[in-house]
């Protein structure tokens, strides 16, 4: 029986790459929310990302994994132009959100960041009440017309974030008084309140205990029905539990993207294999 007869990939993808092309399936045939093509990012003279191209599927959780300094957070921040806030940072290449170029001079970053919300590693509620933490964004973006509408939106956002029952009796208390896990869900509720299409999450559970992590992961799983989620995580198990697709970055290059099941059982690239199995370095 030949290798091909047995259904074994004859392409030798497991061998060291001879080209810089990303292996796996970086591009999708189904509905895509974000398209990145040949994205290069520089911090001053130093290049942090090299020709990254990937599709982010609609209503999917895509996890970015890789060792520290591999560029995954830098790439995540490209999706809502957060890198614009760093003076020395230059982004080259194309990123399309629903086929709109986010670097188009006509593109206003304020509504862009409303469409592409972000949740950070460390929960960062505003030093205001729980209610105000949620109400601030919709008010700023003019999404509501009256108090009752705003109340309803606050309740809806907190409910979607699985926090309503825990805080409904104390909406006037400061958001900073909540536990770490609750604060993170408050930040997710805050992101949801402005009705984004995409939620970017940069290690959203790294500061949380396992119970709070499980709650956030459960929430992410529910949220993906309505939103497209891109998350950076250092936890291999979290990527395996939560995401549908996983992308592996190494030294600023996107090495491999594929279905999460595939990445964690039979990755195509030896660098991915070395990283996920703890053989890196």
């Amino acid at each position, binding site marked *: *029986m*030949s*290798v091909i*007869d*047995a*259904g*074994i*990939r*004859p*392409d*030798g993808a*497991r*061998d060291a790459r001879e080209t810089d092309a990303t292996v796996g399936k970086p591009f999708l045939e189904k509905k895509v929310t974000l398209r990145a093509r040949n994205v290069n990012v520089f911090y001053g003279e130093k290049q942090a990302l090299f020709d990254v191209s990937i599709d982010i599927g609609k209503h999917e959780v895509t996890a970015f994994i890789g060792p520290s300094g591999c560029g995954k957070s830098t790439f995540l921040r490209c999706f809502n132009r957060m890198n614009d806030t760093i003076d020395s940072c230059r982004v080259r290449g194309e990123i399309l959100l629903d086929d709109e170029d986010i670097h188009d001079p006509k593109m206003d970053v304020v509504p862009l960041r409303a469409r592409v919300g972000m949740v950070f590693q460390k929960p960062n509620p505003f030093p205001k009440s729980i209610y105000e933490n949620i109400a601030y964004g919709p008010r700023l973006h003019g999404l509501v017309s009256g108090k009752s509408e705003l109340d309803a939106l606050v309740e809806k956002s907190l409910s979607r974030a699985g926090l309503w029952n825990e805080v409904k009796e104390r909406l006037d208390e400061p958001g900073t008084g909540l536990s770490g896990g609750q604060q993170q869900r408050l930040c997710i509720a805050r992101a949801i309140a402005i009705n984004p299409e995409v939620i970017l999450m940069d290690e959203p559970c790294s500061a949380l205990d396992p119970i709070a992590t499980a709650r956030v992961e459960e929430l992410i799983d529910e949220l993906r029905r309505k939103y497209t989620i891109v998350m950076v995580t250092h936890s*291999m*198990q979290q990527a*395996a539990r939560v995401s549908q697709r996983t992308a592996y970055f190494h030294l600023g290059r996107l090495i491999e993207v594929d279905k999460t099941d595939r990445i*964690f*059982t*039979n*990755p195509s690239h*030896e660098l*991915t*294999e*070395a990283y*996920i*199995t*703890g*053989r*890196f*370095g």
Partner: protein
Amino acid sequence: MTTFARPGKHILKRYDKDMRKLQKRVLKMGAMVADQMQRLQDALGQEDDERARQVIEGDRPIDLQEIKVDKFIIRLLARRAPVGSDLRYIVAASRIVTELERLGDETAQMAAALFQEETPVAGCNGRPAHGEVRSLVEQLLELFEQVMAAFEKYDYRSALQLAGMDASRGREMDKRLKDLMECVFGSGQQVSEAVNFILVLRSLERGLRHVQNIAEHVIYLVTGEDVRHRKKGPASA
């Protein structure tokens, strides 16, 4: 050319130690099964009832080894949360251990069927069966040793040759088993006379199938491709 290299070392040295221990335990169980087959071969060659009794009793330690390896695998899964090649290795090892336990059962059952009566078991056309069975056990042992070597050496090419019925190394044995079965049923011989011989042929068929299954598990652990049930083999396990 596709190459599936054996993975390098983990950052956690203890993890490597655990994986080596797993391989050692599976190989030990394989060696126990091979010893059983060799003992059966000797019993048949020397018409030695005592040896045959040792084969029947020798199945118990194999069962206990299965439990021991299983416990170790469960501990590994819980402690290491393996992924990628580690996960495949552990899953394949777990499946191989099950095949080994069944191979042990088949060997003991053959010993019981061949040596339970005073007179030697009749084979095809009423001829004594021991010589024929001995040669088939020898063939099975050879294939079994090859597949365990493929497991040890991470050798998916060798496993590929052992896995399929067509053009595989087991083809000759499979044909001999079929011919013997046809001979028994086609010779007009009373089935009651040949029942033990038929049982032994069935055990050998299943033994061959277990060897092929192990080869499929080796292919999976090396390449990640699940080749089970791609081609329906004539032998039933």
